[in-house]
């Protein structure tokens, strides 16, 4: 385990240094990301300007969810950036190289093309999160901080697990993970609003099958002391990190299953 971690960081450093040579392009990309965040928050503002409240939630509460989503997705994308290349590696047969090396193929492939410029996205997410907490009048004591951090952690884990599942599917489909990414990015779209506002069938998918809604919604209900219209059992609010870890364990199991049944392409 310790050996794996040190190999991971060595590879990470190498890939990052390699990418630093395209600096100016990354600056523009960070600017673009900032615009993207800004227009998204403008969109939320227009909705609240028009409708005042959405399902009993206020503007700053939804901005908090947006910040949460942006940070968690940002970290998950950073960690999983190598997984995007799996379809290409499988198609070209390059993936075989990862299997015959003496380290875990996952550790080897994760840091590939580590996209450092995405850090900009994280910073904007943090700004949105901090401002929303301040404007909502939340004084972050120990309890609040614990909730915020554990929500971020769980959401990040769930997104990462989704990327892993998507990548594993490509062992069989040899196409991009597009079909499964509908759930990953759809989950991101969904968790920008409280899951309670959606129709039951859609809500239940994101609560109990792909637990993006589960891990972002329940802790936020405690944080803002909201009325909980779904009448879910109270212990749901405390087990979110556990749910996230179970989901990750299942994803890892699926990945291992995928590796075992991987058949190289070509004749």
């Amino acid at each position, binding site marked *: 385990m310790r050996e794996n971690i040190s190999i991971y960081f060595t590879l990470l450093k190498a890939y990052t240094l390699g990418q630093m040579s395209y600096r100016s392009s990354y600056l523009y990309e960070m600017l673009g990301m900032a615009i993207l965040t800004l227009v998204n928050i403008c969109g939320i503002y227009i909705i609240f300007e028009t409708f005042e409240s959405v399902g009993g939630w206020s503007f700053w509460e939804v901005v908090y969810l947006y910040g949460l989503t942006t940070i968690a997705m940002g970290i998950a994308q950073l960690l999983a950036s190598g997984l995007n290349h799996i379809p290409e590696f499988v198609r070209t047969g390059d993936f075989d190289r990862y299997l015959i090396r003496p380290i875990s193929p996952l550790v080897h492939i994760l840091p590939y093309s580590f996209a450092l410029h995405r850090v900009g996205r994280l910073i904007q997410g943090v700004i949105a999160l901090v401002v929303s907490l301040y404007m909502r009048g939340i004084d972050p004591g120990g309890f609040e901080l614990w909730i915020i951090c554990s929500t971020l952690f769980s959401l990040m884990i769930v997104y990462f697990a989704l990327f892993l599942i998507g990548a594993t599917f490509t062992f069989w489909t040899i196409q991009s993970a597009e079909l499964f990414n509908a759930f990953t990015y759809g989950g991101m779209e969904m968790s920008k609003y409280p899951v309670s506002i959606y129709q039951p069938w*859609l809500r239940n998918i994101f609560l109990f099958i792909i637990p993006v809604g589960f891990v972002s919604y329940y802790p936020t209900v405690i944080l803002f002391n909201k009325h909980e219209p779904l009448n879910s059992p109270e212990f749901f609010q405390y087990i979110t990190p556990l749910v996230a870890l179970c989901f990750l364990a299942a994803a890892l199991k699926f990945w291992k299953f995928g590796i075992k049944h991987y058949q190289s392409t070509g004749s």
Partner: protein
Amino acid sequence: MLNNLNFPALLAFAKTSYKKQLAYRIANWSGLFTNFVFLFIRAGVFIACYENRDVVAGLAIIDTLTYLTLTQSFFTLMPHLGSMGLSEHIISGQIAIELNRPLNFYLIYMAKRVGIFFYYFMFRFFPILIIGSLFGLLRLPTSFLSMPLFFLSIFLGFWIAVSIMFLIESTAFWFDSDRGLKVCMYGFFTFFSGLLIPLNYFPAWILKITKILPFAYTFNAPSQIYLGIQTNQELLHNFIGQILWAVVLTASCLKILSIGDKKVVLHGG
């Protein structure tokens, strides 16, 4: 600049790119699926917003859902993200061959896009409208007489979107990469075109900015024609705006291509 308008050749380019697209059937299915996941989530937000409300900003809930379904159905017709190959051509040097063809490169490029447009028109646009109406997310147009205008408006929106992307990608003549600019443009595009939130909800001061930008003439203009809520005068303004932007952007693309043509320096030995 346009001394050689060889229509049969351009038609051949369009047909080939249409056929090429036919090969990616699974990709189209998964794209269709993604469209619907997003449509349901977006629709969910507005359904929650409309709780206990009938008409907001001139739109009833079914009008808003129709707008969302229409913009999803235009999603692939009017390209606004990703790459369409021009910047790669410039960076790889392939552009030298493209520029030496006896036809103007912009026209070839457009012809290829038209082929892709018709592919998506058949296999993405119509399926989304049909499935959308089965789920109760789309109402019928106010007037069927406006349908020819609606289709023309979609085509103009496509032309404007492709020309904007062409301009962005052509900056690769001067810079190493256009990725950053593309992300910026994507942000503006989703917001000002009505893809993120229907423009009907925009406060007056943001609408003022929206009206001087080309983006609203892609997704929003045809959607308004379909909905038929705007006055005839507003619809006419939208339509004239589309034609003007299509002309201006086409001229800019041709101009920038002729400047880039002189500027192009090929990498490699």
